[in-house]
């Protein structure tokens, strides 16, 4: 602890110990505790207490019944725990009888303050910090502490109850993890007292069959098997598994959700899964025992396991597929769903669940679809993967949802009625359908997929979120579609699909919902990025009016849409798909170039998003040497930088620096490895003579832009500029000879301007800067120092511990009523 803080600490402790002085706000105490944690992690707690006796005094104060606020009480308990985490300090506090006082019956435990959840939470967290070394165990075992923790598992506060469970896991782990001589004994009487008590409590809870107790016990075990390792885990499971198995006999099954978590946690534990312990049988039994909705997570968990018996995997996959099998059976005229693994027929329990209510049906289907979506990309997914029936199921569900299916069976009819218009299921099914695009399927099914996607994209009933998902799924299917053999163009089916899709996209770009227009533009950008070079796509797109519409959306009333339109037309233009050439009949003849239009957006749009998007497009264009840019690169860069420098939005200015850096790299050569920016500039032209390059930078006013940005009031901008100037200096200096050749340059105007900018003035724009003068100034600036300062958080001074202590002391007595204004 630095001396300044040491000096402030006694006063602060006195304030905290004084019940008449309310403490400013909760966050201060939290931050204070954070600070003590860092100190004690770095050094001796005992020494800290000895050097700052005020801390012990503060803890002693808590013992006196004097109505300290719940917050301070909670803070003190946690603080004591932080100190006692070190064994020496633990002994010290024990000797002072502080620990039993704080955490035993005599402490807050027996006082009225205990009714405040924050005090109970502080008590648990204190113990959690304290329980780091074996000497803490007798303390925990002796003082009746464990019993209190047991009861807190059922606390009215979710946070306290959860923390109590975590603490039990921690203590159990600590007590059993002592260096053991040989394997642990299965006999409980040989176990440490704490472990005996905790395991005894768990056993009691499991036997009680009362759902809350069983849940608590299962949760503790789940965390234990998830976090702790060692041979004793196996012993523990051997001892408890009969009790867990007993639960499966109960009807109704108590705490099914927690039971699933536990079994999966055990199965994932490396110690156990290698030696069976009857676990696989229990898992198989549980799968049979659970309701379809409960069994889903367990089935997924089993399928994700690295190694487990094939039969169990098959059973789990069957369970997972059940709901989809029901859907397929319900929709299909032919008996039995084709292609699903054997034994997967829609069973009556699943059918009943699906038909019981709309929420149960939607819940089960969404869960199943999400689970299969998770499973699909995994290497350990079941093989063979039933791609075709899954595609069929997804399409069928989507058809049930939009009413376009003609179910043959009674169940199908009822499912149709339940699912009609169900947005939740539509979203989940579209996500799943998109995920299935990783692989293809029989052509007939792929055609159905295209058809159903078009139905959704076309339907006036599709909600904006559903449309977004439909666009995403369509994109995935489009991009995965096969190329026609022998040429690099699209295959005829995809061509056909595109011809139908583009008019739909055109309609969606005119949607009254901004969300839909935006999703449409995002789709257009993506598909153009990937397919811009395909002749078939280019032809279809140019014939579709979509590019013209995208350009019209540059004037959309919604800024998000304008931004997406900027990105889309930027992308179209990069691929030579921009609509300018295609409108000769336009009145007035001369159409404004896109560059001019985007520059207009950059300099006049009232909102940040479109301007940011324009900057991004410009940077891309410069990087890719877009034709409009290459015409007169210097003029382009100068115009963009001029507009960006005046921008109120910090991200536009930061993006301006990004563009400047690309230009710099192209003019001077690639950024060196030292540069923090991984600019993917194309192979730069060999740098011309340095002086010439620097003059180019001067002509586009890059120096001025970067220097102004160096003193920007937004830190990220200044930081970026600093990096850019460092790069410039590194690139320009090695050849060095310039300075000597030209004699000493006149740096006065540059330095004067720097002074003004540093002071935050705008000042007059500088004329053409002499590159030599700029370089000389650049060399004289302490850019490394500045970079160090900027790398610090903008509030690092206010965040310091000293500042915290000062603030806490300063607020004493001035605490007004207005502590809690909204932000």
């Amino acid at each position, binding site marked *: 602890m630095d001396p300044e803080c040491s000096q402030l600490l006694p006063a602060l402790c006195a304030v905290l110990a004084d019940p008449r002085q309310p403490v400013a*706000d909760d966050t201060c105490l939290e931050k204070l505790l954070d600070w003590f944690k860092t100190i004690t992690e770095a050094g001796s707690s005992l020494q800290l207490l000895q050097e700052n006796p005020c801390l012990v005094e503060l803890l002693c104060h808590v013992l006196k019944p004097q109505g300290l606020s719940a917050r301070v009480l909670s803070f003190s308990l946690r603080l004591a725990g932080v100190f006692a985490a070190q064994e020496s300090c633990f002994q010290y506090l024990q000797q002072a009888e502080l620990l039993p006082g704080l955490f035993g019956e005599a402490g807050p435990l027996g006082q009225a303050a205990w009714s405040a959840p924050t005090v109970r939470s502080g008590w648990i967290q204190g113990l959690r910090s304290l329980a780091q070394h074996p000497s803490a165990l007798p303390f925990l075992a002796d003082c009746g502490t464990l019993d209190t923790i047991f009861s807190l598992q059922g606390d009215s506060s979710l946070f306290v109850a959860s923390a109590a469970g975590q603490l039990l896991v921690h203590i159990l782990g600590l007590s059993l993890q002592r260096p053991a001589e040989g394997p642990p004994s299965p006999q409980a009487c040989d176990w440490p007292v704490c472990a005996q008590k905790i395991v005894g409590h768990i056993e009691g809870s499991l036997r009680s069959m009362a759902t809350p107790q069983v849940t608590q016990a299962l949760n503790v075990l789940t965390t234990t098997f998830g976090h702790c390792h060692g041979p004793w885990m196996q012993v523990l499971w051997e001892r408890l598994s009969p009790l867990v198995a007993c639960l499966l006999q109960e009807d109704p099954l108590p705490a099914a959700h927690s039971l699933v978590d536990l079994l999966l946690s055990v199965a994932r534990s490396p110690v156990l899964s290698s030696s069976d312990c009857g676990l696989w049988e229990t898992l198989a039994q549980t799968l049979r025992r659970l309701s379809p909705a409960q069994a889903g997570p367990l089935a997924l968990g089993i399928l994700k396991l690295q190694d487990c018996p094939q039969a169990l995997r098959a059973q789990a996959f069957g369970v997972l597929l059940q709901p989809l099998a029901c859907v397929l059976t319900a929709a299909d005229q032919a008996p039995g769903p084709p292609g699903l693994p054997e034994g997967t027929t829609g069973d009556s329990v699943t059918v009943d669940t699906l038909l019981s209510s709309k929420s149960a049906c939607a819940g089960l289907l969404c869960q199943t679809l999400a689970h299969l979506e998770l499973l699909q990309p995994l290497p350990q997914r079941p093989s063979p993967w039933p791609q075709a029936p899954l595609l069929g199921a997804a399409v069928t569900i989507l058809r049930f949802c939009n009413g376009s299916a003609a179910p043959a069976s009674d169940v199908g009819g009822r499912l149709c009625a339940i699912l009609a218009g169900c947005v939740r299921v539509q979203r989940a099914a579209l996500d799943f359908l998109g995920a299935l695009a990783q692989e293809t399927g029989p052509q007939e099914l792929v055609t159905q997929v295209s058809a159903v996607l078009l139905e959704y994209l076309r339907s006036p009933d599709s909600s904006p979120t559903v449309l977004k998902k439909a666009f995403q799924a369509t994109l995935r299917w489009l991009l995965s579609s096969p190329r026609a053999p022998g040429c690099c163009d699209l295959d005829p089916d995809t061509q056909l699909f595109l011809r139908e899709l583009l008019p739909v996209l055109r309609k969606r770009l005119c949607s009254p919902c901004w969300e839909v227009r935006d999703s449409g533009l995002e789709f257009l950008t993506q598909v153009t990025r990937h397919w811009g070079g395909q002749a078939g796509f280019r032809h279809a797109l140019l014939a579709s009016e979509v590019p013209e519409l995208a350009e019209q959306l540059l004037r959309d009333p919604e800024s998000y849409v304008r931004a997406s339109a900027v990105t889309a037309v930027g992308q179209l233009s990069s691929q030579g798909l921009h609509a300018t050439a295609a409108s000769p009949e336009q009145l007035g003849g001369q159409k404004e170039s896109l560059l001019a239009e985007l520059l207009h957006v950059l300099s006049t749009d009232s909102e940040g*998003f479109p301007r940011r998007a324009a900057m991004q497009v410009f940077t891309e264009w410069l990087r890719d040497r877009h034709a409009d840019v290459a015409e007169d690169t210097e003029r382009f860069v100068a115009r963009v930088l001029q507009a960006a420098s005046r921008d109120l939005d910090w991200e536009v200015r930061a993006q301006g620096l990004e563009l400047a850096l690309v230009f710099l790299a192209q003019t001077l050569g690639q950024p060196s490895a030292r540069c923090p920016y991984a600019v993917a500039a194309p192979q730069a032209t060999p740098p011309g003579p340095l002086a010439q390059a620097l003059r180019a930078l001067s002509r586009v006013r890059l120096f001025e832009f970067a220097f102004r940005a160096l003193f920007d009031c937004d830190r990220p901008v200044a930081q970026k500029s600093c990096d850019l100037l460092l790069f410039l200096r590194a690139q320009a200096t090695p050849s060095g000879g310039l300075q000597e050749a030209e004699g000493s340059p006149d740096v006065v105007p540059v330095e004067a301007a720097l002074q003004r900018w540093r002071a935050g003035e705008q000042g007059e724009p500088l004329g053409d800067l002499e590159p030599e003068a700029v370089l000389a100034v650049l060399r004289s600036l302490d850019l490394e120092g500045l970079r160090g300062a900027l790398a610090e958080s903008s509030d690092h001074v206010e965040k310091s511990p000293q500042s915290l202590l000062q603030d806490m002391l300063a607020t004493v007595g001035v605490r007004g009523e207005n502590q809690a*204004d*909204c932000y």
Partner: protein
Amino acid sequence: MPEIRVTPLGAGQDVGRSCILVSIGGKNVMLDCGMHMGFNDDRRFPDFSYITRNGRLTDFLDCVIISHFHLDHCGALPYFSEMVGYDGPIYMTHPTQAICPILLEDYRKIAVDKKGEANFFTSQMIKDCMKKVVAVHLHQTVQGDYNMTPDRHLGAAWIDKCRPNLLITESTYATTIRDSKRCRERDFLKKVHETVERGGKVLIPVFALGRAQELCILLETFWERVNLKAPIYFSTGLTEKANHYYKLFITWTNQKIRKTFVQRNMFEFKHIKAFDRAFADNPGPMVVFATPGMLHAGQSLQIFRKWAGNEKNMVIMPGYCVQGTVGHKILSGQRKLEMEGRQVLEVKMQVEYMSFSAHADAKGIMQLVGQAEPESVLLVHGEAKKMEFLKQKIEQEFRVNCYMPANGETVTLPTSPSIPVGISLGLLKREMAQGLLPSAKKPRLLHGTLIMKDSSFQLVSSEQALKELGLAEHQLRFTCRVHLHDSRKEQETAARVYSHLKSVLKDHCVQHLPDGSVTVESILIQAAAHSEDPGTKVLLVSWTYQDEELGSYLTSLLKKGLPQAPS
């Protein structure tokens, strides 16, 4: 037994990070998804792991409802929806939907401006999150900060006597009966005026919205009245946009503004101009509104540093500042601030705190409870001690149960499951006439209008409802113009349209009315001459909502033109 369960994850005996889980009728709803300004780590957001442990988030949670756009009520939303993985619907009002992204961007900027803010949401995430929003018209949201005193820009909160099972209300100023708004305003204007008169500069650090608007209107009006010449500046682009939205949502603002708005746009200020960094050094008095509001970075801090050394100047903090900001320091009376590089900044300028906070005081909360007549009240968003006081007051005065759960504590309330609703005989008879009688096994849907009057509920036909409530029926029609190349007279064009449609639409009733117009079901088509081009006729097509599909089909059909008539 059906019940309502309420668990605050944030704002339970606490201010900031508002997030309340409500389970009601088998549905799980999250009210608000806010952040805490005081922390830069995980603690700034509610701990959502308590929800995710119930399985997949979107399966567990049916919806999120955001009460209003303040960050302590919506600041964690993009994190929750794009990073934690909630994919369901989010409900908020139209103004909240419009303003929310501005504030979230502002918040993101602050976070990015500080170091080590990895794992923070991006602009794209804010947009994706906003796309999940379903904007709704709510008379008032159930819970959230509200204010019973009309603001200059927003009307006072009002809630019907809806007798809910439970009223969840904020209680920030639970113990306070605040001095009148007028007093606070007078005080504010006096201080600004005095400073400007003696040639000083006034800095008002603001968050982009709400208060800033109100203060602008206040100063603008005052400047006009007293004929002051000192310039007033606004330093941020974001607020321009905010003003723009306030303009858009003028109908949500208060009566007086709406009236004034007709004569003069209250949000287009005559005296208030955009600020340029260079102006800070101009001699003479001025007033500057600058962001951010807690003087922790950016423009406002930069101006503060320039002006702090002059005792003629003044800074007015119009809101709460969290620890760790310069705003917090100067409000707690610190006058020597250590800045970067161990420089010490001596604060000689005057420091004032003026609360214009948008929270209800004790009187306002009591008024609301009295109006709504709930069966129970639950207090959130306030400090424990103050809540305790208000809880007793509510229990004594209204004889209802009042709860104040801490974060993580669950309150369970039993509710009566059925609400008796009377059905008018006419409606029943009409429905019966239409088909099979409903039975317990085959329930049937019945459409009607629910009238809630006093404490009775009645389902009647829409005609009867109109009659009882004395309302006129309005019909919404869509119209569209289609241009046709046809140099003949209008009547002839109409006749051609008629015969064309008659031949194409065999299943529909196509009629040629005596006045020359053509109808297809509810769709009306009239031909008119083009004002400029005699060779063109304009077809006016109009249809009702019910015939939307046919209407758009007809328009597209007519756009293709008419078949060549034998000349």
